[in-house]
């Protein structure tokens, strides 16, 4: 049977091979036919991508023009706002001089600029109710069409790439088939058994091309739909707005952005940008308190984006950070090295690589990487430099807290802090040697007129509106540069850069940080002299329930004060100048303030006048024991607790306060609440308000 088969094969070999060659030729024709179609689609997609690139550029330029115009108007609006404030201050000054003509004139000027502000508000959407001056939202929404067109360009690019891949596979198949035809041809010219080998090889090649062609033919060529792109762009815009938004709203915005990216991915499961952006939006920014579930999701998204073709430096930098947060330092190092290889000017990747190496106990490699990172930072803009320095210090602070035993962590932290300070003070990265020293650093809630400290210590209660830092220097010389940085839980909270030391070799600096109130947390205070970290002290603001406050600044009264966010402030600049801050739900509860020129009055006189005024309105007024406290960073004040019945027959309690600055100015204030609630309101509301009150001295 086998011999029969052999003889059949041997007898009909040429015919069989000829038929196979014909079939192969037809198969080549088939593949070429398909390849031709693929080539046409590839060109079309590539050309559409180019056309979209042109459109995207045009759309972006127009969006930028609109934003620039909005900013021009905003700038004019801001100028008008400043002019209004200046005019109000002039009116206030005229008030103290009792110059009626000047008051009228200044008030008219203030009204003029205020009207102009109203007019300018109508000229750009940036100042409309929709955006209310929120530049980030205005910028992002103005660029929506540009983002969309750019994504369309990328979608066509991806489509062209898919077609290009298919065309490449078909080309490979045709090449293999030409080899197969050659082998068939050879087999026809060989008489011995080798011809079977040639023919079999040719047949194998042909079968392989069938697999390649079928697989390529059924490879999906689905393109990202416009609906998916719309969802992505929505996510991108919201994510960008979240980046600059305050902490509480940022979380909600990020959640909304992630939802939009989810929708985009649902519509196109191969949407690389959507994975990248979802990962970026999910990614945590702090080493401490990192949510490992979120980190894992962010890392998975970044990996998916890379798998789908987004293999740029940014994706690897973010992936490296996700691994660092998860404590997977080896993977982080590898991802960050890839990021730097892809883009050597990516300073963030270098800073993060230094951190990952340090955390992985590779101190020497970390120090070398940090050298490169600092060199890289020096090429950046001053803003970007400051940002990256703050981030590097924050991450090292976090690592120090998380893993205090990490080798050389303190050296690394000191190096970054001193480099940043040296750059800020000296314009170079190395501190200068200097004999100057910090002898003592103290903290206080306030400073009395005689210079004594109020609430001195290292622990302050929740709701503290301001903290004084008192630094005693010695061995200083003229113009020595120095600065102070306050970090809240590792994050830069405030800084003070002195123009240069003036005065004696020893001296005291008094600096004040404030908030509405200052957020709770551990505060680290670094004092630098000529770039050298000379003192590193701590204080704490205790956590606790605090009434949410907002700052109110009055140019007219030259004061700043915090008040509960639900309350509102209004000023009357007509016959009786006063500032009135009240609870809209209960107008028996209010804070009332006024100031006026009073050349010879003492604080006792001011208080007496106030009591007379109050007595004239409330004949049943009874009073308690007079007391004193320091007020507004200015001087001692006298107060008197009083009770009376108001027009509605309610029992009311109030604290009347009088103060004089000895420079011809009198200040009076009243804190009133229903008698039944007064103590509670005084404790929770009026005390933090009084603590936050700051009165600028009249010069």
């Amino acid at each position, binding site marked *: 049977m086998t011999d029969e088969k052999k003889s059949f094969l041997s007898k009909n070999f040429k015919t069989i091979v*000829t038929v196979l060659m*014909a079939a192969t*030729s*037809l198969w080549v*024709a*088939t593949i070429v*036919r398909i390849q*031709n*179609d693929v080539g*046409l*689609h590839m*060109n*079309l997609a590539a*050309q*559409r991508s*180019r*056309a*979209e690139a*042109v*459109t995207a*550029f*045009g759309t972006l*330029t*127009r969006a930028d*023009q*609109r934003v*620039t*115009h909005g900013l*021009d*108007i905003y700038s*004019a609006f801001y100028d008008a706002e400043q002019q209004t404030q200046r005019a109000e201050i002039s009116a206030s000054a005229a008030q103290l001089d009792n110059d009626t*003509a000047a008051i*009228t*004139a200044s008030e*008219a*000027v203030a009204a*003029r600029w205020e*009207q*102009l502000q109203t*007019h*300018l508000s109508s*000229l750009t959407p940036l100042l409309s109710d929709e955006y209310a001056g929120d530049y980030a939202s205005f910028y992002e929404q103005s660029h929506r069409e540009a983002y969309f067109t750019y994504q369309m360009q990328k979608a066509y690019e991806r489509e062209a790439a898919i077609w290009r891949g298919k065309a490449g596979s078909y080309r490979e198949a045709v090449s293999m088939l030409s080899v197969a035809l050659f082998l068939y041809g050879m087999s026809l010219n060989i008489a011995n058994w080798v011809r079977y080998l040639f023919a079999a090889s040719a047949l194998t090649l042909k079968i392989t091309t069938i697999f390649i062609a079928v697989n390529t033919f059924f490879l999906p060529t689905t393109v990202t739909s416009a609906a998916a792109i719309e969802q992505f762009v929505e996510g991108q815009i919201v994510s960008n707005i979240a980046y600059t938004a305050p902490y509480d709203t940022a979380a909600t915005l990020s959640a909304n952005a992630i939802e939009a990216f989810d929708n985009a991915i649902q519509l196109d499961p191969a949407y690389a940008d959507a994975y990248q952006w979802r990962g970026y939006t999910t990614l945590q920014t702090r080493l401490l308190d990192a949510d490992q579930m979120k980190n894992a999701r962010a890392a998975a998204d970044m990996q998916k984006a890379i798998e789908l073709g987004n293999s740029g430096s940014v994706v690897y930098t973010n992936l490296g950070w996700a691994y660092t947060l998860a404590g997977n330092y080896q993977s982080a190092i590898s991802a960050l090295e890839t990021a730097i290889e892809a883009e050597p000017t990516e300073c963030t990747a270098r800073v993060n690589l230094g951190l990952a190496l340090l955390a992985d106990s590779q101190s020497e490699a970390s120090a070398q990487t940090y050298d490169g990172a600092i060199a890289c930072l020096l090429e950046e803009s001053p803003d970007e430099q400051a940002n990256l320095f703050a981030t590097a210090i924050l991450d090292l602070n976090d690592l120090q807290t998380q893993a205090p035993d990490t080798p050389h962590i303190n050296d690394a932290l000191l190096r970054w802090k001193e480099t940043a300070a040296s750059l800020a003070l000296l314009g170079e990265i190395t501190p200068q040697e200097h004999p100057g020293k910090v002898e003592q650093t103290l903290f206080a809630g306030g400073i009395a007129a005689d210079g004594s400290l109020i609430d001195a210590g290292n622990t302050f209660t929740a709701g503290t509106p301001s903290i004084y830092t008192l630094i005693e220097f010695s061995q200083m010389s003229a113009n020595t540069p120095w600065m102070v940085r306050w970090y809240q839980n590792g994050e830069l909270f405030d800084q003070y850069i002195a123009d240069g030391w003036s005065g004696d070799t020893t001296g005291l600096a008094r600096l004040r940080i404030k908030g509405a109130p200052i957020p709770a947390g551990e505060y680290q205070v670094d004092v630098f002299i000529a770039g050298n970290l000379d003192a590193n002290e701590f204080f704490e603001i205790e956590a606790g329930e605090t009434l949410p406050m907002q700052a109110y600044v009055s140019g007219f009264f030259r004061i700043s004060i915090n008040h509960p966010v639900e309350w509102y402030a209004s000023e009357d600049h007509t016959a009786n100048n006063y500032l009135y801050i009240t609870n809209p739900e209960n107008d028996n509860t209010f804070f009332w303030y006024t100031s006026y020129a009073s050349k010879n009055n003492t604080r006792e006189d001011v208080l007496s006048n106030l009591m007379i005024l109050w007595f004239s309105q409330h004949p049943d007024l009874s009073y308690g024991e007079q007391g004193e406290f320091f007020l507004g960073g200015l001087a001692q004040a006298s107060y008197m607790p009083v009770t009376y019945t108001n027009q509605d027959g309610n029992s009311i309690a109030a604290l009347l306060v009088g103060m004089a600055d000895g420079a011809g100015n009198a200040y009076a204030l009243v804190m009133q609440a229903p008698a039944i609630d007064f103590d509670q309101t005084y404790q929770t509301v009026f005390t933090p308000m009084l603590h936050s009150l700051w009165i600028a001295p009249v010069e």
Partner: protein
Amino acid sequence: MSTESTDKSIPVETIITIAIAIISLTGAMMGIVTGGRSRAIIKYENQAIAAAINLEQADVISHTWMFQDLRAYAEYQRLSELSSLIDTEAEVAQARGDTSRAEILHEQAEEYRTAAQSKATFFAPEYVLPDGTFDEDGFLANQMRFETRNLDTNPEVNFAKAEALIAETSVLMNGVYLFSFVVAFLIFAKVTKSKWRFVFLTIGCLLFIADLVYLVLFIA
């Protein structure tokens, strides 16, 4: 018998050879037509890119002009508003009897008015609507009409033409592709010496007719 058979087969082979030649020529001609179509596709695709560039260039230029006018108009409005507000203040001062202040204010207002007038030469007043707003859309429409005159600015039309040609080319290529099968069957018929040659010939002829019908139907 054998001689007879050979005698009968001669005209068949000749017919097959002629058929192969005709079909090959037809295929070659269709190939030339397809090539022409492909060149046209490239032409339309390039025209589409050029049109996209023309459109964006015109649109960006129009916006640049529009924002120049709008900026000047916004500044004009700001200065005019200021001069008018200062005039009102001056009148109030005058009414109060404060003549010296009224005079200063009038001078200030005049300065702002002069500055506003100088800005007025930098925008087209015909686009200022009765309510005082600037007709951005009207300005852009007119400017675009001017900028796009005699220019192809519709990439989509060109892409649509290219897509239509791709579809046509695809039909033609299918035709050429089928011809390759026709030729193959005719070659089989030519090289086969048995009665199978007639089967191959028939299949080849049927395929050829089907191909022609397909081409006529689809191109029509």
